[in-house]
């Protein structure tokens, strides 16, 4: 079985396409559309990578990132933040996530970054 990737993205279209290409690349993808469901996911700590959107209907992805990084069980799992927000640089300064990707993204860029973080564990 391939590596496990947990995806938190409220937009169905984006969630679908990401799931589609990652599955196509033999990754095991768990998709969530809101923070509540994501936080309730029992196998959170057994993931290899988190892909988190920033703007979510029930909260801010950056805070989710903080929670994950402050949790012993999850803090070593790399996180990639995704945002349509233009202020990515600013975001980078205040967030402990390993990587950031701006929407709209090139799927090849996304795949490259995902592959990088899965093959170079931190």
């Amino acid at each position, binding site marked *: 079985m391939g590596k496990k990737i947990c995806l938190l993205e409220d937009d169905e279209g984006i969630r679908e396409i990401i799931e589609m*290409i990652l599955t196509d690349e033999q990754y095991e993808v768990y998709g969530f559309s809101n923070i509540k469901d994501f936080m309730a996911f029992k196998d959170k700590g057994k993931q290899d990578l988190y892909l988190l959107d920033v703007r979510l209907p029930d909260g801010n992805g950056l805070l989710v990132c903080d929670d994950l990084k402050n949790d012993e069980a999850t803090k070593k799992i790399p996180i990639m933040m995704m945002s349509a927000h233009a202020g990515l640089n600013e975001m980078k300064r205040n967030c402990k996530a390993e990587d950031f990707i701006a929407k709209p*993204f*090139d*799927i090849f860029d996304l795949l490259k970054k995902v592959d990088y973080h899965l093959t170079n564990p931190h």
Partner: protein
Amino acid sequence: MENTFGKNIIPDNDVERVEALKRYKIINTPPEHCFDHIAGLATQIFNVPVSLISLVDAEQVYFKANVGMGKATTSPRGVSICSLAVLDPEVTVFENAPHEPCLLTNPNVAGSFGLKFYAGAPLTTADGFRIGTLCIIDKIPRKFDANSRAILKSMAKIVMDEIELRLSSISEVELQHQLMEETTASNEELLASNEELIRSQIEVGKLNAELSETNSEIRAANEELLSVNHALKVTQNSLLLVNAKLAESENLKNMAIEQADLGIWYIDADTRAFIPSPRLKQFFGYHEDETMPYEAAVSQIREDYSAKVVEKINEAFLNNESYDLEYPIIEFRSKRQRWVKSTGKLNPAEKGRKSYFSGTVLDITEQKENEQRKNDFISMVSHELKTPLTSMGGYIQVLQMRADKNKDGMSGNILSRAYIQTKKMSTMIDGFLNMKRADTGKIPIDLKLFDMADLIKEAEVESLATISSHNIIFAPVETTPVVADKDKVGQVITNLINNAVKYSPLGSTINVACIRVNETAQVSVKDEGMGVLPTDQDKLFDRFFRVDSKQMANISGFGIGLYLCDEIIRGHGGKIWVESELGVGSTFYFSLPL
């Protein structure tokens, strides 16, 4: 006084008598024909050798006429027998003198002359004084009867008349003389007066001339005064007009200030006192009658803006420039936030006025809030647009992969074009988002050390991959390390190249270069396009500015690209500008400090 007569010869009224004699002005005067004639007549009438007309003065007896007595003209009063004769109003007669007791020692009688007879009639004045005698003398004794006495007395009266006549003629002559003298004197005086008059006249003439000169001067002065008066009236009218206009303009100004809701202030050049208008005080939360010191106003600028605003204001005053700033202030009591647009400048000294600082403060809170709402809207819309764009791009790319796997070249080609369009749309949305950020004054600049040569290389790779319509030539770039935001600077280069492509003909050449100039890295993008009018060149970097021309009508754009480039480069402390010639081409430059 000698007295030969042995008795008193001085009458009681002698003083008055002598005075009366003197009145006739006859004493001690030369002989006169008429008196000599009367005396002569007496000697003939009475047949005597001597006749005298004597005048008895205080001391002497004067003989006015003397016939037969030698050259004698006077005789002492005490000797002359006439002194006795004036004592008696009647004729005094001595018929045989040597027998007269009073004449015994008289020299005339006892002496060699041998006088024997004497008869004397007094000369009596109209007022009764006996001033002298007409007398006859003989050396023999004689009888003198009453008739003779009467004749002598009458003759004495004739003498007296003559004396009176003489006096009156003398008086006449004297009067004439006096008159003449007076006339002469008057004449002289008149002459003198005349001369004086002539002199005066000359003086008067001179004065007159002077006066007429003065007069004409006064007239001229008067005329001048009149014209000055007229001019003054005209000036006054103009001043009144100007005043009215000033009042009107002051009114309009105040209306404008009120309408514009402007707060104004100035700093007095002398006292350096900060004087804010009532409206300005309101902006800062003060009452109209409260004092608002400059320091207090400055301290109310919101903390994150304060230092920068103060620095810019000080800089403007120091360099004699004006400033135009927007910043939030916190109201004094309510602590409510208010956005203001503040301008200020140094007004240089003019005639009669020192230099002073002045400025305006405009409340732009509402405008700022609207802007914020607009920005929030843009942000929201952009974000919302990006979301479907992301999945759309993803789907297209997945399809593209499938097409490649299935060797479906046609589909792959179409899909790759579709993907380019989504990229374009994405860039456009980024532009809107960035513009919003530039508006709020915070395009984030993430400074990192990198080599400009690398950045230019990346731009070259990207443009070669995406642009086939133009011949883009990248000049070789030396290693040029800069501290800047690589992504943002790259965005500027891409923007300039895309613009060059957009505004120059198909197949034309675009030159890109990066060189070191005066401690800066200077990037240039040169095209062979339509060029920009000099009047439009400065405005190119304004937000939403688009050159208004027929050629531009077919080229789309929002007028935000160069505005953002300008914001980014200025955010680095750099400079962006254009050199262009209409119909020949443009070269866009930007420089970053090394």
